[in-house]
């Protein structure tokens, strides 16, 4: 099960047939294992990692430190929900340290992101302060290094 997940996490493009061969299982077994993991919410979706910098669309990403006052009986969950429901919010984490929520926002432009923070985030009642860090360059994301794919520079035959 763990191995199946590791394979999918690295490359969800592999077919069920390929995975079955790789793990020495039948296709039926793999299909039902995947279905079960999906039903249980272990597998939440299949996405593609894209380097948008290389396209004409160049979205802006910002990491926003948010300090909030936790609400009685609700802790941080309620504020967090009000924030993460926005589609512009790509990730939202409760963290330890000098602030409380780490919010990752994506927008079409710096202005759009700034406006979102000013109009939607900062005014929330329990938000005490925000600090916005625009991402200037992505070196690595989700374990993948953003560089030109490395050519296979091995000799063609080695005995």
């Amino acid at each position, binding site marked *: 099960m763990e191995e199946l997940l590791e394979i999918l996490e690295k490359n969800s493009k592999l077919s069920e047939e390929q995975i079955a*061969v790789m793990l020495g299982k039948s296709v039926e077994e793999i299909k039902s294992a995947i279905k079960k993991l999906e039903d249980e919410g272990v597998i939440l979706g299949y996405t593609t990692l894209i380097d948008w910098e290389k396209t004409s669309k160049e979205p802006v990403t910002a990491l926003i430190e948010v300090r909030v006052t936790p609400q009685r009986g609700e802790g941080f969950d309620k504020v967090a929900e009000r924030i993460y429901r926005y589609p512009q919010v790509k990730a939202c984490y409760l963290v330890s340290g000098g602030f409380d929520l780490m919010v990752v926002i994506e927008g079409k432009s710096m202005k759009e992101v700034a406006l979102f923070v000013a109009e939607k985030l900062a005014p929330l009642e329990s938000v005490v302060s925000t600090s916005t860090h625009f991402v200037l360059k992505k070196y690595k994301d989700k374990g993948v290094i953003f560089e030109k794919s490395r050519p296979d520079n091995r000799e*063609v035959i080695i005995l």
Partner: protein
Amino acid sequence: MNIEKMISPTIRNIPPSGIRKYFDLVNEMKDVISLGIGEPDFVTPWNVREAGIYSLEKGYTHYSSNAGFIELRREIAAYLKRKYSLDYRPEDQIIVTVGASEGIDIALRALIEPGDEVIIPEPSFVAYKGCAVFARAVPVIIELREEDQFRLTPELLEPAITEKTKVLILPYPNNPTGAIMNEDDLRKIVEVLKDKDIIVISDEIYGELTYEGKHVSIASFPEMKDRTILINGFSKAFAMTGWRLGYACGHPAVIDAMKKIHQYAIMCSPTTAQHAAIEALRNSDDDVQAMVREYNGRRRIMVDGFRKAGLDCFEPLGAFYTFPSIKKTGLTSDEFCERLLMEERVLVVPGTAFGDCGAGFIRATYASSIENISEALIRIQRFVERYSNAK
């Protein structure tokens, strides 16, 4: 002066490599998928590379002791103990070499007097025979058989032994067949050897890449410990081919003899690589395991692919090679490889490159991405169908 005549006849008489022509062909072609490469496609794990870089930054650019840094030899001893339950003293039973390649060379040179016989099971890595000949030994070839899963059996070994036999090369996990020898297989060989004056040179460079059970070293049989020279290295398991680092372990007298050659011919192994190797042995178990898992998945895809293409392919359980039979196509190994390259742009190596008994087989490596392997298998299937129908 006729310069050609100045070359030692022993060397002159070694035939040129049969795969030379593929280099020339490939150089003029585009979009070739090469399954002909006997080295990992992975890059050395970063922590290991970083340790090498750090040693340079610190200015560690000098010779080490001839046998290699004692710190590295201690790590090697700990690793062999941990992995294969082997006990070697770092002080006098381990020598760090320039790859397993040097280990094979100096082990043979330390043992051989001209005319001694060296038993070499084939198909196998080309260096054994070459190094044996360089040492003026007489190579005695055992032809391994597919019906034995290319394992060495007592029935094959016994008739090859003569009064002159000095060395048996034991090449498992095997390049090019991917065959392994498990504990029971080895025990039968031990029975044959235990009261004979024969030294085993056991090339276990692919030991870590074993996909069923755990690799067992012949040196772990108490009666074989002193009669075995264990050859190993960092190239395959740690994806460190270019660093050129390996090691040999054995009886102090043998290691001492090997050290004499190493000291005069090499001085010491590259020290940047030695620093990196210390890190590799200490902190790379997870990386190695991840690579082994990845190889194993690809191995199954490749074997499955060859079988679906209609070729017989025995189950290789070690290294990163498959060795399917291409007899069904009616082509020789060489014709198969050349036509596959020209018609489908996939490069594999003829089994005959590893010994005459490799005829009728090809070696294809899965040290390549799943995407490449899958595409290559589609092309191979198309190719095999074409030739099967033509027959």
